């Protein structure tokens, strides 16, 4: 266990250093990312200026949903997407074999090899929005905050599991990275509270592309608007995706005939 942690921290450190190697690149990417994030906040600013909420969701709630989305997006774009995307490339070129030969768990290794620092600019913006929303809202009880945290983490792992499942398909079909773009497009809906969408779309965004669990459920919890059912669904979705993706990963590896042999 300790050696695995050492490996992971070593890989993280290496990928961090690599990604900051080209200083100007890094600065330009970060500035560009920040500008894009700010421009993407345009609709929410517009929304706040013409109305004070949507379907019972106040300005504060919407700000927190968007904040959670940006935090998720920061990790998705900086950690999850580059690494899982690299797996597709590694399968195609056969370099996955080198990773599989190493004595640590392949899923862990492939999960931390690369980090793109630039998308992390979304993190402070997201946290700022979360803070703004929390400041506008009445204070939440510690239990509410704990439930919200649980749901957010469960949802985060669910999204990771979903991405990994999508990647596992590339063990069998070569050109499925387009699937990831579809996932991005679906995840984009998570910027807004779920009730904005039709019932069936809400279910899709909870069970199929669980972005709703990451962004909407925690805000509901912070407002005290949660019950056992909500927590149950949130945790169940997280566990299902995490376990399901791990099983799919192991099954895919078992069927994997390497490129060279």
């Amino acid at each position, binding site marked *: 266990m300790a050696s695995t942690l050492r490996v992971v921290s070593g890989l993280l450190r290496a990928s961090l250093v690599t990604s900051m190697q080209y200083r100007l*690149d890094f600065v*330009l*990417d970060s500035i*560009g990312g920040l*500008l*894009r994030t700010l*421009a*993407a906040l*345009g*609709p929410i600013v*517009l*929304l706040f*200026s*013409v*109305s004070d909420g*949507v*379907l019972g969701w106040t300005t504060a709630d919407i700000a927190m949903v968007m904040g959670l989305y940006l935090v998720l997006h920061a990790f998705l774009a900086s950690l999850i997407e580059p690494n899982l995307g690299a797996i597709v490339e590694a399968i195609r070129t056969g370099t996955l074999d080198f990773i599989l030969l190493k004595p640590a768990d392949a899923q862990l290794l492939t999960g931390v090899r690369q980090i793109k620092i630039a998308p992390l600019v979304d993190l402070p913006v997201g946290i700022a929005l979360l803070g703004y929303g929390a400041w506008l809202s009445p204070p939440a009880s510690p239990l509410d905050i704990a439930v919200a945290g649980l749901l957010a983490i469960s949802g985060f792992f669910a999204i990771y599991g979903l991405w990994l499942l999508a990647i596992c398909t590339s063990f069998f079909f070569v*050109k499925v990275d*387009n*699937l990831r*773009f*579809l996932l*991005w*497009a*679906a995840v*984009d*809906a998570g*910027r*807004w509270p779920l*009730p*904005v*969408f*039709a019932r069936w*779309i809400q279910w899709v965004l909870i069970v199929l592309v669980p972005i709703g669990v990451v962004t909407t459920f925690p805000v509901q919890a912070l407002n005290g608007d949660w019950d056992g059912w909500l927590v149950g669904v949130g945790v169940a979705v997280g566990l299902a995706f995490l376990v399901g993706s791990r099983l799919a990963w192991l099954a895919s590896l078992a069927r994997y005939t390497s490129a060279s042999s």
Partner: protein
Amino acid sequence: MRALRAMPDLFRVQIAVVVAYRAEFVIWMLTATLPLIMLALWSSVASGGPVAGISQDDFARYFAVTLVVRQLTSIWLVWIYSFEVRTGRLSNRLLKPLHPFYQDATAALAAMPLRVLVLIPVLAAVIWWRPTLLEMPEWSALVVAVPALILAWLLQFTIQICFAMTAFWIDKADGLFMVFFSFFAFFSGYVAPLSLFPDWSQPLLNALPFRAMHAVPTELVAGMTTADAALWDLAVGTAWLVGFAVLARVLWTKGLQRYGAFGG
């Protein structure tokens, strides 16, 4: 003249490319979910009554038209040039007797039939969801919408060319364009109708090129603006087009000199 004679064949080739990569094209189209998400959002906002004079049906109509207009004016030259300049593949196209821009233009236009084909079921679903959104705009608005759409396409193409040309100098042409695109999405009426913007910002919005790139044809077909009002916007848009076209020409010439210096 040579270009005109080559057009039919260019189109034939590009349509063959579109048909060959139809699966990927369709997936790319399906990733453009933003108008539908915005439709759901603004519809919900207007559920308690019109917002800034725009009702739920108006929003539904506006975003349904946005879907169509966006698909018909969507161009992705920047990535192509970014790749070709970096790898030197551009030399291949430069050797041909026809300016590469013709190939780029026909490639973008050839994708339209497939885009329209995929749009039909999506539009049908939206109309089935909100039948009241079907409302014919005035004839004058429809007539002006055609040149407005053409202008929007030309603006998109020319501006993309300008950004694509920066690939001769920097590695981040696509990054630069994506920053531009995110501002375009906001100020062009792609994510929200421009009439929602505060009054003090309207003169600024009218002066920027973004309006002509999306809002003008969309608002005309959605019945949110009249032909007379649109004529002024078209004039402003055309002025921007001329400016960008000149810039594109300058950048192309200067860029090519620099490209040649790499010994390609």
